[in-house]
């Protein structure tokens, strides 16, 4: 017994010593401590052009191109001899940023040469010094065929660091066999559909849709109005009205028949194997967004990355992408090519939305007091 007590004392002493040593070590090291975050303070570099060879790694969202044997990626490989590693590892803007941020902070991109991210995320990355600038002289095909309306967006007026990939709308996917009557975001809060509804975990898409449903203009909304909408969503989550918050996974739930409706993206038909699923423009309007190819700092083989950008802006390539993904193409002449191919998509309001169709839609607005609003939103997501 005595023996045991002595044993314990020794352990307690060792533990105390270890803790003390750790605290002292942390303190000492912190005096000379490096920084975490804060962005790269160095000069912004410009992506280097040149002949495309070697290997190219592209990070994109799932279902954003045909990665198959006869798809666009394979065609690029055949035409240029560049070996493409096309990875679909982006499931949400925030989640992807969180994953790569520590790398970018070190000036590395994890081998990737292109990311595809939303406008606000591209801007955020650029402001932190995580992106390389692009020289328009290296991108003749891109700027020859870029839709005029996309030439100088507010977040990057000179297209210094971003090249549009695809655009789309966030609205409601409805399983018409189960709930043909859903047209408004407000219908998603109808107790009839309890537990059969999902929403996206993107702050800038889901919350504005709910605000539109309440008659609030998200572009002019105050932080309190954002928080009010978040509270409404939070209550619905707590009551079990909302089944889950998702990224792309809502497409799986729709395929499995678990849902009557989901807040989702207009071009995701290729990911949803459910003939009754239909994307609907919410009565009170949608969220419009566009996504961009950007070149991160430390990107290897930027010449191949620039060649890729030029390649996907060839109208005959862009039309293949549109046919496969059904999003809004940034490339001029796609509509005419679709008409030549006698594709129904040429008439689709989802692929070629008219101003009348999107009259109530709003952009991907960033809320005032972002940190506070985002914290409230994250609390809802991890309720």
């Amino acid at each position, binding site marked *: 017994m005595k*023996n045991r007590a002595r044993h314990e004392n020794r352990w307690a002493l060792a533990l105390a010593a270890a803790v003390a040593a*750790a605290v002292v*070590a*942390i*303190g000492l*090291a*912190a005096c000379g*401590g490096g*920084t*975490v*975050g*804060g*962005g790269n303070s160095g000069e912004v570099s410009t992506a280097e052009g040149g002949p495309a060879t070697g290997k190219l790694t592209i990070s994109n969202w799932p279902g954003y191109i045909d990665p198959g044997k006869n798809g666009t990626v394979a065609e690029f490989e055949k035409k240029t001899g560049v070996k493409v590693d096309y990875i679909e590892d982006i499931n949400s803007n*925030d*989640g992807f*940023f*969180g*994953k790569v*941020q520590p790398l970018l902070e070190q000036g590395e991109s994890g081998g990737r040469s292109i990311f595809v991210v939303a406008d606000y995320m591209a801007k955020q990355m650029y*402001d*932190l010094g995580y992106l390389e600038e692009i020289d328009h002289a290296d991108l003749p095909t891109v700027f020859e065929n870029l839709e005029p309306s996309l030439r100088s967006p507010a977040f990057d007026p000179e297209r210094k660091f971003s090249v549009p990939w695809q655009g789309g709308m966030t609205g409601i996917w409805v399983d018409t066999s189960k709930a043909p009557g859903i047209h408004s975001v407000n219908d998603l809060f109808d107790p009839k559909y309890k*537990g059969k509804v999902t929403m996206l975990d993107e702050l800038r898409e889901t919350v504005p849709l709910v605000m539109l449903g309440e008659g609030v203009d998200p572009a002019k909304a105050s932080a309190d109005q954002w928080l009010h909408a978040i509270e409404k969503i939070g209550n619905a*989550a*707590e009551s*079990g009205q*909302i*089944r*889950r*918050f998702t990224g792309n996974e809502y497409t*799986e739930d729709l395929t*499995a*028949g*678990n849902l009557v409706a989901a807040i989702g993206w207009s071009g995701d038909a290729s990911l949803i194997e459910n003939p009754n699923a239909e994307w609907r423009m919410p009565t009170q309007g949608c969220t419009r967004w566009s996504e961009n190819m950007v070149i991160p700092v430390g990107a290897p083989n930027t010449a191949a990355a620039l060649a890729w950008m030029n390649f996907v802006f060839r109208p005959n390539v862009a039309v293949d992408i549109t046919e496969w993904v059904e999003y809004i193409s940034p490339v001029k002449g796609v509509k005419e090519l679709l008409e030549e191919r006698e594709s129904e998509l040429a008439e689709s309001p989802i692929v070629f939305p008219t101003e009348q169709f999107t009259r109530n839609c709003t952009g991907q607005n960033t809320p005032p007091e972002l*940190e506070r609003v*985002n*914290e409230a939103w*994250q*609390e809802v*997501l*991890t*309720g």
Partner: protein
Amino acid sequence: MGLRQRLVPYWLLAPGLIWLVVFFVVPMYFMGELALRSGSLTSGYTFDWAWSNFPDSLSGHTEQIGRSFFYAGTATLLALLIAYPLAYAIAFRAGRFKALLLFAVIAPFFTTYLIRTIAWKTILSDSSPVVSVLQTLSLIPPDGRVLATSGAVIAGLTYNFLPFMILPLYANLERLDLRLVEAAKDLYSSSRQAFLRVTLPLTMPGIVAGVLLTFIPAFGDYVNAQILGGTSQAMVGNVIQSLYLNQRNYPEAAALSFLMMALILAMVVVYIRFAGTEAFMGDEEEEPA
């Protein structure tokens, strides 16, 4: 004993120690340092002894911490109730099928954790046969579901960590000296008494090891809640993920990770004390004084 001989044990320890230092002590140090920083991503996180990160990281997350306890505890209990009879049967009743049954216990591990968990999503989807059977038997309401409920998360945890319970129990039961049970019966104990007073106490080390191996990873798990859970099933792992990846609040994420580690450590210490170190380490010879 020569110097060289005395150094041998240290040489043998070296690979393990180096591993621990490189993959545990060093990362722990960086995590501890991160937990004491403050600032934001845009301005950079600077080190300033920000102890307030610790209480801050707990505030507003007590519900998820409590939930993690409940889920991991329930899953551990269920795993124990399933694993004990199974391990017992494999150890004493399986005969020539012993190896095959053990293989069956381990076989799911040949598929990755994530794939197995996602497979459950298909099996348990609302229109699946499993769910309609449960509905017909009135075990869930007619419009009820399994996915995106607490039940699904607990079931996922139980399923995924079950082998960690079975294997230590089996290893322990396997070495059980059956003559002791016979002796108990010779002394007129019933089968039940023999089990409760001989078998069970002798297999305590297996139970303790199994409980620890199941509870600890289950407590920190976030995959099951992410994939099988719904809106009110987030566990503490999901909170840390959200703090780190979505809110970029690295210091609070690190502080919360630290607190959870300390909490588990404290619980394990109390648990081992309660169950007895002998139960954990096996029956050690008394050290000569």
